[in-house]
């Protein structure tokens, strides 16, 4: 799961250049992703991992870094 998420961010937002992308890098503050990008990430997570992300879950702690996403998706899959 981690590698799939990282790959999606790399290919779609960084054109394959991973030098700036660490698992804890905050997407918005580092300028990697904007609001459009966030919507793309949500769509990717919903279709790839077969989860539904509720509006209430649109929080930095869930979606603003690879670490946060991995933790969040694992939690969702347990539900």
């Amino acid at each position, binding site marked *: 799961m981690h590698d799939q998420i990282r790959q999606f961010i790399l290919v779609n937002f960084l054109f394959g250049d991973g030098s700036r992308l660490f698992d804890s890098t905050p997407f918005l*503050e580092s300028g990697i992703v904007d609001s459009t990008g966030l919507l793309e990430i949500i769509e990717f997570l919903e279709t790839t991992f077969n989860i539904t992300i509720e509006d209430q879950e649109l*929080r930095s702690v869930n*979606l603003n870094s690879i670490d946060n996403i991995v933790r969040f998706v694992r939690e969702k899959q347990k539900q």
Partner: protein
Amino acid sequence: MDAKHILTASWGTPLQGLLEGSARQYPDKIAVICGEVRASYTLLNTLANRFCGALRDHGLQKGDIVAILHENSLNFIAAYFGALKAGAVVAPLNTDLKPNGLQPILLELLPKAIIASARQTEKLESCSEEVFARTAVLLSDGDSSARNNRFDLVSIRHIASYPSTDFDPVRTISENDIACIIYTSGSTGKAKGVMLTHGNIVANTRSICDCLRLTERDIQMVVLPFSYVFGLSLLHTHIAVGGTLVINNLFCFTGGMLEQMKTEMVTGFSGVPSTYAFLLHRSPLVAFRDSLPCLRYCSQAGGHMTRKVKLELRRALPDHTNIIIMYGATEASARLTWLDPRYYFEKTGSIGREIPGVTIKTLDETGGEVRPGEIGELVASGPNIMLGYYLDPVSTSRVLDVHGYHTGDLGYRDGEGFLYVTGRRDNQMKVGGYRVDPQEIEDVIMDSGLVVEAAVVGMPDDLQSTVIEALIVPVIVTDGQEELFVHCARCLPRYKVPQHFFVIAELPKNGNGKIDRRQCAEMISHLQARQRTAVESRSIHA
């Protein structure tokens, strides 16, 4: 006269006096909340004094330009007021600019000092040497090593080592001195630096505070960048009344933002149309309806918000929350009109009436005033109208004349004095001999309820000269757009129905959240080409 009016009556220039006055009157009150930081007025003013000290220490004189390239934060606010205290002209720049957009602006400004966040400092390293020709110091959050030896690099972390000098250039600054140069978004053509004086901004700040009845009890959620004049006016007005600014730079995480609004008991929220479109379609706003008892108002400016969004917003927000529609321009220091929320339903399409001190006339092409109900250009005058565009007398003379500031917006005034904007002079297209404004078509598309966002653009066409095309973000993605075609055909004359509805994930916007029409046109051109290729390929295979 209540306390607020005594206070506003005593305001005067210079602009930094707004902070100094509140620091005297409300020393321990929280001025800024940003992440874990909660700064009192005393702390903010002290920090601003230290920025002033650091700048003066590097030889900054009255009238020198200080560029701020920093995301919204306590440091931004302290740097902004610190630079004003030092007598500088402050240019807050859009942090979304790429180096190729930043370079010409810095080249025009040739700032004496630059104050930048870590991320923005990296960006500066891509700019050419020439932009630093007059730079004496770069105050940065970052650890970047100086890219040359011509200017000093000072870490903002060391700003505390500068004395909180009570340097007072106030007596040397007049209301006609330039306080800020704010760059317009430049979505159509070259970005222009709008020169606003201390007098411009203080006058407009006072008028906005009066209309919104702002007091020291107000707590504003800030999601708009301070480099954008609407965002900057939130800073001026709330600092002026001794209110609190809650800075949240992660608006698109709407769940977290609304939770913060609830926790911090926010009283005011402000956004552009796309802010509200996002809130309505990808946020738990409705779930928070009963959790925002303090939210006194939401204000909207920065472009036309469709009737449908206005009505949806009214349903989604708590009943006690007023929605205040405002209209303005960077060239007007921020705001020109406001719609008193009592008229929200009766005058839904209106931008309201002038704020105190402003006059708007609707003029025809010869400069004559048109009658109520007739369309003319909105031309504004008042103490908030800019001095002109920086180093650009030609552009200045195109928009400023004896009548005032020509907004480029077309509109009319109804019999009761309420103003309506019908479109932009420069967005109008000529289609089949008819003058068409994209706004009317976008409103019809949005009214269908099938679409989250829409932008209509006139595209060049070999046969018809111009064809109407639309970019849409549908509520539900479907194969075709038959339903939308049927809806438009029912509501619009045939020549106004878009030729295609191209589906995309989100409309391209500039850093301020406004729709970037130039980028929309580029996107459509690309999609048209792709469609032509697909058709050609299908016909070859057939």
